[in-house]
């Protein structure tokens, strides 16, 4: 029987939740990396037992962890204890936590500045990895979206990281600005039909696309309107919270923006709003049914100033029409006194026949639905604040 493995990153460590295909009885393991924020974990589609994790701390910086046995044991890819960190020729050996912006002459871009909260310019500084996206084809290749916003890639299983500097050096950087969580590159979407095409999103700069494997990038924000920037229709500066794509329709993407739920049918060239009858179109997460590319999910949040559900009632909204027409899903979810948030990487779907949907809250609950959202039940209730949720569907 198939089974599922849910990877949960929290403010104080990582947890792994497993169940068989019925998704009724769950085993919970963890905390892994106890005491450290774990922003994201994600498994390789090619080798599901290979899982990458971003362990990060304001005190001690960034650490990349990797498991090759489905999360039972973890290593920091790179040089084992006691071995030198440099090769005989002086070049660095594996240093899995080394994220240095590429300013070299042949491949890099100069370190510039971005807008600070008060509108002044602020130097680019690496802080942490927000999102890890393993390659669809190669278990040794993984992308990392970081704060301050940039995209890195490892081709050796996470041992060493190189920046794809064409994004940071694209030219509009001085107009990018941090959102409340920092200036993070939080979404990385790989096109399964075109290995050269990658979509990313930055808060608050917007969405970008490369069609040449990451060398050059273009902003894809036409159609977005944001009242918190001087020109609401500017090329960049939009606070995109998350983007999602269904593998069967790689030209169609959905976006939860700061306010507004958006859709594009042409790989981001133009976006249209599909918020429709949502009670509020502010939110962070957005995801797509595994087998129905026009069925999408969001969790409406009251407002940018009040990051909790409307009326203290936690609800998922589902559209079966690719947006505009939304239905409330509340069976099994708290009906009152619920003031949690659901952060941008904290929703996912499995690929079992009856699509499972999962999301985690800042109150430490992880909810699952084994029937595409019709009803919900908590897997766990009392974890630290949940930062991310990913699921693997296993044979």
């Amino acid at each position, binding site marked *: 029987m198939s089974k599922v493995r849910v990877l949960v990153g929290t403010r104080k460590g990582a947890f792994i939740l497993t169940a068989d295909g019925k998704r009724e009885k769950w085993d919970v393991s963890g905390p892994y990396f106890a*005491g450290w924020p774990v922003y994201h974990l994600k498994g390789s589609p090619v080798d599901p037992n290979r899982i990458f994790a971003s362990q990060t701390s304001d005190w*001690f*910086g960034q650490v990349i962890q990797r498991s090759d046995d489905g999360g039972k044991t973890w290593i920091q890819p790179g040089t084992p204890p006691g071995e030198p960190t440099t090769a005989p020729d002086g070049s660095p050996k594996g*240093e899995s936590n080394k994220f*240095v912006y590429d300013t070299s002459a042949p491949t890099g871009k100069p370190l510039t500045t971005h807008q600070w909260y008060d509108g002044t310019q602020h130097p680019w500084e690496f802080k942490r990895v927000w999102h890890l996206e393993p390659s669809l084809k190669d278990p040794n290749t993984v992308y990392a979206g970081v704060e301050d916003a940039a995209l890195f890639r490892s081709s050796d299983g996470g041992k060493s990281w190189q920046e794809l500097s064409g994004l940071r050096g694209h030219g509009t950087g001085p107009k990018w600005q941090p959102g409340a969580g920092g200036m993070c590159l939080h979404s990385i979407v790989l096109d399964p039909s075109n290995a050269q095409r990658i979509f990313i999103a930055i808060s608050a700069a917007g969405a970008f696309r490369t069609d040449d494997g990451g060398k050059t990038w273009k902003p894809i924000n036409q159609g977005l309107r944001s009242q918190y920037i001087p020109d609401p229709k500017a090329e960049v500066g939009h606070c995109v919270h998350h983007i999602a794509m269904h593998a069967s329709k790689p030209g169609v993407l959905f976006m939860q923006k700061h306010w507004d739920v958006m859709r594009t049918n042409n790989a981001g060239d133009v976006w249209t709003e599909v918020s429709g009858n949502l009670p509020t179109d502010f939110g962070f997460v957005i995801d797509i049914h595994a087998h129905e590319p026009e069925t999408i999910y969001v969790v409406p949040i009251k407002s940018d100033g009040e990051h909790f559900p409307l009326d203290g009632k936690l609800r998922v909204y589902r559209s079966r029409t690719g947006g505009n027409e939304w239905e409330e899903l509340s069976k099994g979810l708290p009906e009152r006194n619920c003031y949690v948030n659901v952060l941008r990487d904290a929703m996912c779907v499995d690929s079992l026949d009856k699509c499972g949907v999962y999301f985690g809250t800042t109150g430490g609950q992880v909810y699952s639905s084994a029937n595409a959202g019709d009803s919900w039940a908590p897997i766990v209730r009392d974890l630290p604040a949940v930062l991310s949720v990913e699921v693997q569907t296993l044979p």
Partner: protein
Amino acid sequence: MSRATIRVALPAHLRTLARLDHGDVMVEVEGRVTQRSVLDALEARYPMLCGTIRDHATQERRPFVRFFACEQDLSHESPDAPLPEAVASGKEPFFVIGAIAGG
């Protein structure tokens, strides 16, 4: 060139990363005993600590990390200044501390 065995006291999270048991870490330092030479030796022995105490790019102390020794705060001393004799002789440890911030 002189060689010294230095005791380094690490915070719990860094001990976990380096897969160390309780107790101070002992590192061998050749030449002058300074913050830089001690941390270079520590990172060479435990490469997973690279970037956790000093910034990868600038090699400067991370903002929420402090260095204490012999009941003194050495965080703002030059990284190339000699450490106290009691540290250089192995009598006292060199403390790497995670700053108190946020409770």
